[in-house]
């Protein structure tokens, strides 16, 4: 079995997606690549399809929200090449007021529910997703709970007196 290395992946991606890659860095032994949103889907497809890269397993994906960044809304994907036991993390950011990312559910079916979860908590839509609706929260919920501006505590609770709770 050939083993993947950081140099190999970096070189291969940079030759194919030159200009689209914003940064490649090692974060705590984890190769992390930030890519333009417009090239995200094709890069993910390449990582999956390429015979040597062979990232056939989607470990997880989730939304990101950094209100202080210029591009505040983001997505994060973790991929795993099991034969080579190599993991990689892909990030992509946007500042659209209503972010729409390409769905990954046609590459990895595992993305289906996780993208619904991301929609549920961050409000990002996924273009091409077969069933884009809330999955965990009640359907009547207004807002996106994991965005930083969302109030965590139940605003309808009247018995929590600031004097008593030291807030």
């Amino acid at each position, binding site marked *: 079995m050939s083993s993947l290395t950081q140099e190999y992946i970096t070189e291969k991606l940079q030759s194919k997606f030159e200009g689209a890659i914003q940064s490649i860095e090692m974060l705590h032994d984890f190769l992390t690549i930030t890519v333009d949103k417009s090239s995200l889907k094709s890069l993910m497809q390449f990582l999956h399809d390429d015979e040597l890269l062979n990232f056939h397993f989607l470990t997880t994906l989730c939304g990101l929200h950094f209100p202080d960044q210029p591009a505040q809304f983001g997505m994060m994907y973790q991929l795993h090449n099991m034969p080579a036991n190599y993991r990689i993390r892909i990030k992509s950011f946007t500042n659209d007021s209503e972010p729409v990312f390409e769905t990954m559910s046609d590459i990895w079916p595992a993305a289906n529910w996780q993208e619904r979860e991301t929609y549920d908590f961050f409000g990002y839509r996924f273009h091409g997703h077969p069933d884009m609706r809330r999955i965990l929260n009640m359907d009547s919920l207004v807002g996106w709970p994991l965005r930083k501006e969302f109030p965590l505590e*139940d605003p309808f609770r009247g018995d929590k007196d600031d004097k008593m709770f030291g807030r």
Partner: protein
Amino acid sequence: MSENNQKLEGFEGPGFLATSLGKAVGMARKNSIWPLPFATSCCGIEFMATMASTYDFGRFGSERLSFSPRQADLLMVMGTISKKMGPVLRQVYEQMAEPKWVIAVGACASTGGIFDTYSVLQGIDRIIPVDVYVPGCPPRPEQIIDGVLKIQDLVQNESLRRRNSPEYQELLASYGIE
């Protein structure tokens, strides 16, 4: 708890007791409550201990749990109820036949507990009327038994016609339950 074992009042003689129908029915109901456990988290585990041999809930005439709301007298809500679960709990309550009682076991069922957050119902009394609240996180089996004995007091002493009273109708109407 002391009131719980009170003797039935009435005219007593050797081998007989004459009392009002309401009191006799109350006594019968009180000692044959069929509880419906609606257990969603750790309070439910305490309830399992309550049912098991050491605490033996069956001593109080509640040996038989009803897992159909249609046959249950007492809805025991034990655990965190998320807002998504709310309509389910409400439907279970609506399916129960009168007379019915509700006990909220533990901090979460009573007030939402530590889960002061957008996804958790801040006490089941926001969607259904509650008769007895049992504090604790989770409460010990003794506390759950004490709560059920409080329910028994209500069952024993409540007027047979209370469920037809305007106050009761108003209470249900305030929750939007017909």
